[in-house]
């Protein structure tokens, strides 16, 4: 009994770390997509670990196998639904022209990407490739030049 308590306690502790870290990330992250990343990944992981701990407790300590089966079903359903919901949120946000940002607040992706993504007739293979590094550098150079112009 003690062994089971220790094992499930370790699982629940790991899950608590995941869940709490995800919640902190949801508040602290600067951008929608980073928040999405923080929330969805840690929710799924935290749920998995906590549920494993609860299953161990239900099956061995509480002697209630039905509850263990129900928690296992919860894991199965949430592993289908939670990533789907996260994907749907991300897709809807991309459709609504919310653009991923990088450190200095400048857009990583060209705004034309989202416009092209909506237009399904065009060939997306060229767009979905990452933008050429020289182009990004030139974008940043332009942005810095703009900033200097504004400051002067």
């Amino acid at each position: 009994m003690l062994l089971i308590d220790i094992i499930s306690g370790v699982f629940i502790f790991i899950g608590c770390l995941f869940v709490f870290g995800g919640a902190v990330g949801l508040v602290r992250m600067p951008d929608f997509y980073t928040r999405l990343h923080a929330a969805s990944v840690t929710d799924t992981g935290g749920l998995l670990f906590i549920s494993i701990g609860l299953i161990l407790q239900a099956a061995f300590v509480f002697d209630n196998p039905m509850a263990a089966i129900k928690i296992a079903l919860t894991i199965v359903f949430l592993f289908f639904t939670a990533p789907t919901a996260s994907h749907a949120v991300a897709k809807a946000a991309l459709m609504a022209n919310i653009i991923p940002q990088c450190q200095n607040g400048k857009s990583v992706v060209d705004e034309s990407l989202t416009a092209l993504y909506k237009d399904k007739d065009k060939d997306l293979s060229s767009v979905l490739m990452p933008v050429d590094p020289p182009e990004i550098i030139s974008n940043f150079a332009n942005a810095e030049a703009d900033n200097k112009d504004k400051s002067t």
Partner: protein
Amino acid sequence: MFLALVIVIILSLILVMIRALLGPTLYDRLLAVNSAGTKVVILIAAYGFLTGRPDFVDIALLYALINYIATIAVLKFFEYGDLGSGAYQEDDL
């Protein structure tokens, strides 16, 4: 152990609620509510263990499904401005 679990989940629920209330865009709020749904599922399951009767996990099971349905309904509304498939009307989305 279960008490610590419940406390951690309530704390993270508070954090998630801060994002749901402050979130600059609607998608932030929706993401926060979706995440809160997952946390509520864990909270209900853990509360059953805390009070010594883990029979009530089926509420958590139901919640896991209902939360998904609500999120998808909201997203469908975002994307098409409508819940049905027949009328595509212009609105001020």
